């Protein structure tokens, strides 16, 4: 690892100031991706601005919305009685990320800012129609994800929280890579105020995406049978050493049907 200056500001405002003063500085959340990247010398920031003390952790539920602070760990979300009650699918998703040691450090804000195409949280944010709050604005899920490792975040913009509207029902099913636990394919299905939304992670060349043919069918009839014949085109899906695009396309259907069954 190349050396860097380490700073731990006590507020979001101070963090933004530090990041703004140095274009080579990077924000550090849980570090579950950034630290391995630095260890491989794939990145060389001059400074790391640790957000651990910036007051961004915590969960609140009010008015049909679950609001999760950006620095809330996966373990906290997975074990939260409030989240389990309001959006059990979200707690289950968080409990399936990595392993328990990773869940004790990794955060929702870090995961979303990184936007790994095989990460779990993007599927929940997109399917539930969540809103990503930053130090500057609120960004709708449909506008937030802009491709593999690409988000709407601007330089110096930090995620502060994510607000999830509580759905009528929802479920997440993933086929995990057996080594990394990242999603080979993960499908989040939600039925809420905005209708039925189906988000697919792990499969798309451009990261998380909505399966709109399935959304339309499930909107008419929320059943496994309704999507039994809906194929996902393989031409925009990933092929790698873990799975080919055709296999991933098949898994999207399987995971979607399992999610519909689990949502009930």
């Amino acid at each position, binding site marked *: *690892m*190349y*050396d*860097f*200056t*380490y700073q*731990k500001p006590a507020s979001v405002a101070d963090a933004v100031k530090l990041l703004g003063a140095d274009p080579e500085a990077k924000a*550090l959340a849980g*570090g*579950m991706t950034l*630290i*391995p990247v*630095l*260890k491989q010398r794939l990145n060389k920031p001059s400074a*790391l601005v*640790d957000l*651990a003390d910036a007051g961004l952790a915590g969960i609140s539920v009010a008015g049909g919305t679950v609001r999760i602070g950006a620095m809330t760990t996966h*373990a906290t979300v997975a074990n939260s009685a409030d989240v389990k009650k309001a959006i059990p699918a979200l707690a289950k998703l968080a409990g399936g990320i*990595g*392993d*328990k*040691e*990773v869940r*004790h*450090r990794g955060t929702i804000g870090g995961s979303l800012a990184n936007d790994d195409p095989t990460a779990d949280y993007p599927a929940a944010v997109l399917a539930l129609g969540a809103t990503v709050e930053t130090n500057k604005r609120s960004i709708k899920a449909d506008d937030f994800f802009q491709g593999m490792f690409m988000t709407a975040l601007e330089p110096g913009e930090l995620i502060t929280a994510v607000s999830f509207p509580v759905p009528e029902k929802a479920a997440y099913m993933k086929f995990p890579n057996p*080594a*990394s*636990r990242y999603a080979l394919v993960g499908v989040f299905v939600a039925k809420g105020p905005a209708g039925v939304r189906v988000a697919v992670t792990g499969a798309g060349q451009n990261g998380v995406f909505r399966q709109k043919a399935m959304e339309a069918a499930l909107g008419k009839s929320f059943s496994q049978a309704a999507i039994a014949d809906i194929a996902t085109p393989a031409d925009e899906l990933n092929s790698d050493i873990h799975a080919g695009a055709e296999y991933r396309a098949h898994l999207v259907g399987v995971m979607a049907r399992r999610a519909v069954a689990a949502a009930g």
Partner: protein
Amino acid sequence: MPQVALTVNGKKVTVDVEGRTLLVELLREKLGLTGTHVGCDTSQCGACVIHLDGASVKSCTMLALQAAGRSVTTIEGLAKSDGTLHPMQEMFREHHALQCGFCTPGMVMSAIDLVQSHPEGLSEQQIRHGLEGNLCRCTGYHNIVKAIAAAWPLMHGKTMPAAAE
């Protein structure tokens, strides 16, 4: 050079580190606590698991400076000063839950967190699932799972509920 002050195995320490110094490097190289191992160095194998304020984390994927003001427990901090082993260590010995021993410190730290965070009981499946962040290439896990199940009643001071899920 920055300094980091933290508590390690109940003792307050202040150490000179670089920004890039990993927590595991602080423990092994600066404090001589070589019981915490580095296996894969990529946060997969779990040989470096320690407790940070009681929660199991991988010390190879954490900066020493991130631990400032926090309390770290390593494998060296488990046994009593008279040498009495922690019940988890005792059960690992009792059930022959190790062969080469390289993964053992991380396994024990991870297992203690698993048992402590499940006061309602642990099924065999939960134990196996709870070890997904720890790799052992000798034993095939079977005796490790047995040791953890045997440690649960000792750590909670009661019989494990039968059908815990």
